[in-house]
């Protein structure tokens, strides 16, 4: 019988890693402080004791070197590395290994390479970590063909999507929002997988569609709850994976409600929100009854002071305002 308990997002990820490592000796974890320390957010806790230093590898601060090591190990087929990049903001020092190497090898080699690697990384503002430790850069990865980009919002999705990502034969960028690690939710004890490319309608509604990612899913659900009191019915769609994107679920929802608000913590220009807005205009233009709204941070670096940062992050007030403007 299925056992379902409430556990945190971080624990759900840990269960997925533990399951994959116990099942497949090719799965190894590497990154900074992932071993004895258990990862700075505790996601790899206990794995070092269980699987040892050979499979849970503490690396020096050499992101290009160890991400590239993951790419090479995956290319040989000898390992399925899960590499941790401590903060998504550090992609700058290893981006070549991600966007020129991992993403393109399969294509350039005529389909003969399988880069079965997961790059787990941490995004998101809200902790006064300032401009170099708070960004949401999923759009940069999604921009480059050849990478799958996963962004769960709940513990349940986190576990199922991480299992699928590790079992996937393509490079997957798995992005975890820091504000979600402590969030609790129902998660089955048994392993299960959620296919990459399937959105989840987190709440059904008929007046407005909100497409939201990661932490913004929770804020959007809060807004939906509030608006219900005023008789406004909001549908919240969580794409869960940015690449592949479940276009059908998004478009079907827009066709139903005729109105779209996209809520995303990425920067506003050339980002995920503008991408979905363009999608709506091109594939559901005739169904749209109002302009598409996007709710994102401003085009500024992430500020440090709590007062400034909370102004920067899309708030429930801003989301609600956007919804009301197009009602």
């Amino acid at each position: 019988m299925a056992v379902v308990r409430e556990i945190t997002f971080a624990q759900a990820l840990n269960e997925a890693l533990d399951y994959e490592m116990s099942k497949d000796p090719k799965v190894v974890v590497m990154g900074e402080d992932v071993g004895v320390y258990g990862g700075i957010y505790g996601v790899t806790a206990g794995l070092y004791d269980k699987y040892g230093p050979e499979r849970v590898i503490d690396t020096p601060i050499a992101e290009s070197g160890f991400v590239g090591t993951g790419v090479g190990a995956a290319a040989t087929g000898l390992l399925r590395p899960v590499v941790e990049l401590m903060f998504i903001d550090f992609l700058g020092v290893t981006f070549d290994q991600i966007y020129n190497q991992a993403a393109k090898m399969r294509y350039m080699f005529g389909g003969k390479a399988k880069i079965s690697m997961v790059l787990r990384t941490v995004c998101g503002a809200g902790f006064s970590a300032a401009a170099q430790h708070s960004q949401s850069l999923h759009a940069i990865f999604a921009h480059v063909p050849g990478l799958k980009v996963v962004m769960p919002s709940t513990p349940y999705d986190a576990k199922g999507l991480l299992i699928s990502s590790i079992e996937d034969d393509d490079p997957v960028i798995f992005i975890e929002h820091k504000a979600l690690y402590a969030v609790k939710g129902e998660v089955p004890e048994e392993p299960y997988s959620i296919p990459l490319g399937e959105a989840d309608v987190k709440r059904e509604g008929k007046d407005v569609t909100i497409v939201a990612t990661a932490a913004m899913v929770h804020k959007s659900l809060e807004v939906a709850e509030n608006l219900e009191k005023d008789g406004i019915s909001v549908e919240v769609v969580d794409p869960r994976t940015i690449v592949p994107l479940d276009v059908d679920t998004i478009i079907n929802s827009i066709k139903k409600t005729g109105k779209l608000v996209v809520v995303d913590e990425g920067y506003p220009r050339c980002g995920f929100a503008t991408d979905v807005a363009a999608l709506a205009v091109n594939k559901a233009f005739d169904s749209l009854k109002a302009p598409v709204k996007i709710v994102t941070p401003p085009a500024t670096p992430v500020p440090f002071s709590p007062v400034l940062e909370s102004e920067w992050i899309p708030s429930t007030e801003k989301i609600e305002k956007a919804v009301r403007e197009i009602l």
Partner: protein
Amino acid sequence: MEEISKEMLLWMYEMMVKIREHEERVAELFAQGKIPGFVHLYVGEEAVAVGVMANLRKEDYITSTHRGHGHYVAKGGDIKASMAELFGKKTGSGKGKGGSMHIADLDVGELGANGIVGGGIPHAVGAGLGIKLNGLDNVAVAFFGDGASNQQNFHEGINLASILKLPVVFVCENNQYQISLSYDKQQTIKSVAERGKAYGIPGVSVDGQDVLAVYEVAKEAIERARRGEGPTLIEAKTYRFRGHFEGDPQVYRSKEEVEWWKKNKDPIKLFEEKLLEKGIVTKEELDSIWEKVKKEIEEAIKFAEESPWPSKEEVLEDVFSTPTKGVLVWQW
């Protein structure tokens, strides 16, 4: 030399000749406009790839560079597939999607040329990690240039291989130029091999024009790696006889300098002289190797020329391993 079998000596000779002939023909085909894009040729550096590869098995891995044809040939890559790739044909190693800078043959452990200087170095470290964790006695060899030895991937890759004690051999092909910048202006040390010390691994410098010297140094490093004793850094001092890429006006070096190297340090000539002097082979045997190789190269060229172009739909194939609906084309 005495302890190396005649068969192995002839293999080395044949491989060096094969690389030379391959590259000279590619230069002609490029000049005729038959090969598009950038090509960086390996003429003059043959002894490095061959001296190292003589110690490798099919199951061993290598990572290569933008100047990668020599590595591919010596590792036993299928030259019909690579020639077709150079032409951009459907039958190419990358189905015409990679070209000269991205030729790979995973079936023989050739993990790929690379358009990014230093980009492949950590891939060899990853291969080494895979080998070690799977309990195999194979090795991985990273080839790269002197220019690449200033890249983060060189430093980070060697350090990782050192702390994890991986079976990786780092082979720096110091051809004394990174495009136009000469080696003495890139770093203040006499030899890239000195950098081994910084990472706690042996660093050895060798005459890269002497295939037997390269063979010996590589043999020791590779055997050490197979025994689980960790990585070695080798610097092979060499010289490229042609421009950085085809079409390079070479304003940064004198004709005399190039001629001096061609006359005095041609790795094939030097090896040939040695083989004849020691009476190991006859001139006829060597001539017949040239004949055989020329035939093989011509067959590869014929194959490439006669191969079909990729079909237009193929632009959408091979991005992901599983078909992913709606990912590749956004119809707006």
